[in-house]
């Protein structure tokens, strides 16, 4: 499905990362690899260190910390926020929505909208879509998009497929109406028949958590995990990404009437370096235009990986320059989505640590 948005812009971006950093080497003994295998995979997959919240820290803590920083720095006024869109798969509670919790903790006005969206790897793109749609309303002038996840708490330490790459993070994106006539092109597809490709099988209403779902079992590749923990089928995800993402990007650029050379950066979701290198090769785009270093420095934080990559790799440049950027997210759902937009002269684009 193709989408078009007009007269909207991103005016600021803040990424909040946990101070707690765990290095790949410190956890190697948990995995069913030889040291040589581990070190080779570290290089190929881009494992490095990942940022994990301390026990008890929730997404509302990260989001409130980030928003209070913006209030204190006078980069955002409380009274200007007309909507909060929160994209997460690790809410504070099953109910109420965590966006309401954040609104309450910050003492924001009541005349506003708070929305939670359950999405992961394509969560930044979906959050932008929803935020842009809200901005079509005459009374909504500023939307705060929050992407946040602390899924490390749902990953087995003995799961070599998922534990080395998981990261916790939050991002705050400010979206506003724009006077410019720049068009934002986007597209999205979903395939719910493969819903179990990335899944936490227990803990919802379908299979409530119990002593049985907490039992650790070994899979065919030597990973130990329980039904209460994240299970991602790496092979299936890789094949899905290589099959679906290149044609999605080609279609997006064709719709916008531009070439790959016109795009300054392809800011993609960050599952691992190997997947991103193969994507760049398939798209015939120089590797330096497709940053793949977020897993190495921070971990894969699902829907926060794209904003983390923008903050880390572009930083101050986006406060001084105008860049044409292609964003793409792909994974849980299955969902895959992309956007082409000009990001320019942001009020802020930085990383802070919680």
């Amino acid at each position, binding site marked *: 499905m193709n989408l078009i948005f007009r007269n909207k812009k991103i005016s600021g971006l803040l990424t909040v990362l946990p101070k707690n950093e765990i290095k790949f080497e410190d956890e190697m003994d948990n995995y069913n690899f030889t040291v040589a295998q581990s070190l080779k*995979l570290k290089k190929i997959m881009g494992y490095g260190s990942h940022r994990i919240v301390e026990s008890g820290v929730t997404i509302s803590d990260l989001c409130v910390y980030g928003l209070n920083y913006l209030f204190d720095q006078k980069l955002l006024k409380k009274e200007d926020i007309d909507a909060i869109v929160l994209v997460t798969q690790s809410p504070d509670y099953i109910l109420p929505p965590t966006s309401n919790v954040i609104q309450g903790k910050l003492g924001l006005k009541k005349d506003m909208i708070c929305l939670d969206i359950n999405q992961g790897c394509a969560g930044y793109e979906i959050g932008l879509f929803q935020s842009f749609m809200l901005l079509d309303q005459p009374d909504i002038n500023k939307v705060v998009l929050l992407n946040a996840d602390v899924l490390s708490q749902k990953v087995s330490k003995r799961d070599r497929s998922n534990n080395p790459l998981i990261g916790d993070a939050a991002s705050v994106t400010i979206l506003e109406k724009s006077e410019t006539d720049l068009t934002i092109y986007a597209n999205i597809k979903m395939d719910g028949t493969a819903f179990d490709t990335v899944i936490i099988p227990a803990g919802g209403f379908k299979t409530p958590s119990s002593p049985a779902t907490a039992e650790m079992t070994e899979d065919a*590749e030597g990973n130990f995990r329980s039904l209460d923990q994240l299970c991602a089928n790496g092979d299936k995800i890789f094949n899905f990404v290589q099959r679906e993402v290149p044609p999605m990007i080609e279609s997006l650029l064709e719709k916008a009437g531009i070439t790959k050379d016109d795009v300054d950066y392809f800011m993609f979701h960050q599952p691992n370096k190997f997947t991103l*290198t193969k994507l760049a*090769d398939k798209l015939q785009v120089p590797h330096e235009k497709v940053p793949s270093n977020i897993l190495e420095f921070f971990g894969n934080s699902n829907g926060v990986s794209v904003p983390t990559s923008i903050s880390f790799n572009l930083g101050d440049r986006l406060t001084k320059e105008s860049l044409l950027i292609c964003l793409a997210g792909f994974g849980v759902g299955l969902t895959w989505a992309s956007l082409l937009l000009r990001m320019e002269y942001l009020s802020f684009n930085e990383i802070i640590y919680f």
Partner: protein
Amino acid sequence: MKQKIIDILKEIRPEFDFTEKTDFIEQGMLDSFDIVSLVSSLDEEFGISIDGLDILPENFSGIESIIALLKKNGVK
């Protein structure tokens, strides 16, 4: 080409004999992480980038299938 492939496979999983005519995947000689390592080494050794769509277990089930994969991806 064949000997180079065998050398790379030996480096990844030294405990197996990859000269035997057997299915490397069915016999558990290569898992998905081994395939990632293998692709990376083959890319480097032969100066190519194996198409992501070709990274399927069946293309790594034996020496002959790996040779066919390399030829498909431009190795002469």
